[in-house]
């Protein structure tokens, strides 16, 4: 039994945000004046008072020609068509499921928008409606794509592809949606031995890489065999690395996660969450990313 390690109290300084590439980001807090020029149109996150354009949320100012808006740094997920999301089923209703995706309203997954097991395509009948719980139950995790957005802002999902569907064994990490970088693909098979789905809504799913890719069966049969220890170590390490990146507000994409993983290899998995070790790995990952950009 090892002794308890104790740390001395230390002043924690915020990590230097590093060199900014491209121009300076104009960060504002609620109440800050963005501009006094009256020629601009106000967009989301701003309001006009006394001929001044003032920010109503804390975030980054974005300007498109004459439109000025403030994009909040910490906000709920705003769905956009084509986004990949990972969600959890909260309710089973008559012809649809309600999915929790960290947005303002629960997302909707219509019965007509799912793929049946086996990939068969047919019109859903009344029997399918009664058997909805056999497909997806409360608490299940799914990966889906945003099909459309209702007028009130609620997002409608679909899983009409073999790569989407119910998720099996793995680990879910919830982060802020603004930290997930928009990329061409959000399904990554990392070379370290695990796969990761970076949902645009901030839900990140880490799972062991499945051996056969083709026989997906529509993603409904979960593999309930125990995951081997080596895969578990990779998944736990990835999970801790993602948490480390999030605490230092770094963007999450496959390269940043991989660099952080490689920087964390000399340390034990459970040590990654110690503040000093977190700082060290994130600094190293950030340095490599800056070198990559040249």
């Amino acid at each position, binding site marked *: *039994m*090892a*002794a*308890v*390690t*104790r*740390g*001395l*109290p*230390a*002043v*924690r300084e915020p990590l230097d945000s590093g060199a900014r590439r491209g121009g300076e980001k104009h960060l504002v807090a609620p109440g800050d004046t963005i501009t006094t020029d009256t020629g601009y149109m106000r967009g989301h996150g701003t309001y006009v008072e006394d001929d001044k354009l003032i920010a109503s949320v804390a975030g980054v100012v974005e300007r498109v020609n004459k439109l000025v808006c403030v994009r909040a740094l910490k906000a709920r997920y705003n769905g956009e068509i084509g986004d990949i999301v990972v969600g*959890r089923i*909260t309710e089973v209703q008559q012809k649809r499921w309600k999915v929790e995706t960290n947005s303002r309203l629960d997302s909707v997954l219509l019965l007509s928008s799912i793929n049946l097991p086996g990939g068969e395509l047919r019109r859903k009948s009344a029997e399918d409606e009664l058997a909805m719980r056999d497909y997806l139950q*409360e*608490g*299940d*995790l799914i990966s889906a794509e945003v099909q459309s957005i209702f007028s009130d802002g609620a997002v409608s999902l679909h899983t009409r592809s073999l790569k989407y569907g119910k*998720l*099996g*064994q*793995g*680990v*879910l990490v919830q982060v802020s949606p603004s930290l997930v970088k928009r990329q061409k693909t959000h399904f990554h098979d990392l070379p370290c031995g695990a796969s990761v789905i970076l949902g645009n809504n901030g839900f990140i799913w880490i799972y062991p890489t499945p051996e056969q890719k083709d026989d997906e069966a529509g993603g409904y049969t*979960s593999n*309930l065999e*125990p*995951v081997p*220890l080596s895969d*578990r*170590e990779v998944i*736990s*390490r990835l*999970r*801790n690395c993602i*948490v480390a990146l999030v605490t230092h507000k770094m963007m999450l994409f496959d390269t940043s996660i991989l660099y952080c993983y490689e920087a964390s290899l000399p340390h*034990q*998995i*459970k040590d*990654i*969450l*110690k*503040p000093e070790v977190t700082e060290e790995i994130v600094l190293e990952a950030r340095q490599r990313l800056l070198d990559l950009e040249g």
Partner: protein
Amino acid sequence: MASVVLSEAEKLYIVHGVQEDLRVDGRGCEDYRCAEVETDVVSNTSGSARVKLGETDILVGIKAEMGTPKLEKPDEGYLEFFVDCSSNSPELEGRGGEELGTDIANTLYRVFSCENSVDLKSLCINAKEHCWVLYVDVLLLECGGNIFDAISIAVKAALFNTRIPKVRVLEDEEGTKEIELSDDPYDCIRLNVDEVPCIITLSKIGYRHVVDATLQEEACSLASLLISVTSKGAITSMKKVGKGSLDPESIFEMMEFMIQSTREASRNKMAAVLGQYQSSAQFPLTSTWDRTESRQVTSHRPSEDFG
């Protein structure tokens, strides 16, 4: 208790991981998360502490007030516990949080029911007439699993931080008693917290037990055992929570493990805590400075076993 909903596959992953002694965040079954203990955070209390154990965030404030001793114990002061969970989540506001709050308060009463945990006789001013009553208010800021452990650490730290002013009772010629408070703000009595017990929660997941379960792991465990142990290994109370059943042999096993680990680690931990606090007591202004300017944080990182 605020809990997360998990899919069956996620629960299976967690249970298998525990069997192999590798939890989701890389810890072993007997590892605690990093704990941060900060004292003297609330200025208008007699003593306060804030504990962050992973995601769990607890704030404890202690106010010392004069009151009359209880009839059955006329020469002792006493402690009163209040727990507030309303700031945690919408489902715990109002009625929902009350149930959890009374549950935690009753557990704390049982833990501190042992006579030697706090020296209550030192809280007495005049037998049968005046005594100090310590009102311990626990605020559950964020529930990230394992709240009982965090609350017991916070209460112990807050009790250590408590400064009770010294009073003298003067008697007039007519017999009316006047209570005189000393003018010096640093002239106060401190409590000895060596015997204050700490709660350890062992959650049974599958066939093994884990300490310091996260919210996800608590959703997978059917039964947990809460034991409050002092640094010398004496058990003051025991409680079982959860719908599942525990085998008598596994209960003995869990108790043995807890007592063994507590004896070793608690001595180290309390030495660490007391050492740090004693150094800050030499400079009475340090705690105020640190609170406002640089957030002095005592970080205790139990590596293997935790008291």
